């Protein structure tokens, strides 16, 4: 028996691009986007902010983590049009006046990366973690950072870097 596994698709007219306004790293941006554009693709492909990385694109690796109104989220599972009017902070927005963010400096101090691909997501996630204030112990840092995978296995140094930045905050 042969079976068609994919049902025929209805023809859906191409939607109008939707105008949105995002404040990205303190700068207001006006964009017109197709609804399926993820926040990750909007940042990387429409705003040329390529610091935020696309890893799995399915919310499993955390490389795309950014802060939306101060909360860490996976930008790959977020439609940009649903974040109209919000404030986005990416890795490019953490340093102030040429001085690295405490987490950026701590990652350097502790050699908390090898290939570096997961690092922007790790740092943005850690910034969210510190702002949430729920992690005190090493075990709690590990548990609440579990949404960020490091395939190089730099975890001990990442935890040490977060502890250092947490102590300074």
């Amino acid at each position, binding site marked *: 028996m042969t*079976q068609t*596994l*994919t*049902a025929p*698709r*209805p023809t*859906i*007219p*191409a*939607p109008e691009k*939707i105008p949105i306004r995002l404040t990205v790293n303190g700068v207001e941006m006006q964009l017109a986007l197709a*609804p*399926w554009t*993820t926040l990750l693709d909007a940042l990387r492909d429409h705003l040329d902010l390529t610091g935020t990385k696309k890893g799995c*694109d*399915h*919310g499993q690796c*955390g490389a795309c*983590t950014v802060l939306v109104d101060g*909360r*860490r*989220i*996976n930008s790959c*599972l*977020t*439609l940009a*049009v*649903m974040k109209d009017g919000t404030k986005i902070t990416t890795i490019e927005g953490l340093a102030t006046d040429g001085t690295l963010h405490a987490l950026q400096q701590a990652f350097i101090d502790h050699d908390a990366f090898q290939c570096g691909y997961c690092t922007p997501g790790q740092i943005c*996630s850690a910034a*969210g*973690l510190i702002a*949430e204030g*729920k992690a005190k112990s090493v075990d709690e840092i*590990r*548990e*609440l*950072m*579990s*949404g*960020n995978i490091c395939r190089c296995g730099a975890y001990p140094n990442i935890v040490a870097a977060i502890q250092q930045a947490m102590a300074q905050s």
Partner: protein
Amino acid sequence: MINFQYTRATDVADAVRQIASDPAAKFIAGGTNLIDLMKEDVERPSRLIDITSLPFNTVEETADGGLRIGALVPNSDLAYHPLIAQRYPMLASAILAGASAQLRNMASTGGNLLQRTRCYYFYDTATSCNKREPGSGCSAIAGLNRMHAILGASEACIATHPSDMCVALAALDAKVHVDGPAGAHAIAFPDFHRLPENTPQRDTNLEPNEIVTAVERPARGFATNYSYLKIRDRLSYAFALVSVAAALELEGDTIKEARLALGGVAHKP
């Protein structure tokens, strides 16, 4: 992901009107599961109706001493809400056992109830799946199925419900408030999700065009003696192979009442 239209709902009536006008439309809130399924081509909505501006973002005390949790309250806000920690700590620990901090910041209470199974074959459009394409068969029954159902499975489907939060809600009495063409009503939590039987494409008893508006908990929270235990392939950020929510009410050394609910072992918690 396929082409789709995007609209915003202004209130519940507008949301219900919009979804009733387009049979292939879906509501979107946190999007953590739906966007993922759309990228995998498992979900192919013609339109997404954004419900995030509806007024379901509060946790309110009810007249009988319980709590009414709005369907849009994010999982993290719920887990860390002071009244949840104080009255329903098992619900908080179940929520924190699921997903990652980022996903909990995004995922909504209503969306947690309505998330689809993580059966590998449901996700893989190259395989047969009665839940995804009714009548096509079930690849999981003779496939890799160590995360699948032990209880209540059918010959059509052995998928499990993946939620942790719902296991705690199943152990402790809860009601799901819904609204829709037939008006607002409440569904007792054990009746909300369903067993697969011959229609595994239906995860819940929610009627077409209905929307979840809130989850209500009664006053009794079993806040003293409780545990949520989750067994999984890694220590964090993995779906349950088996989980159990257990709560006791003690009188001295005597168990006056016990509540148990299992997760990861059936099509419903």
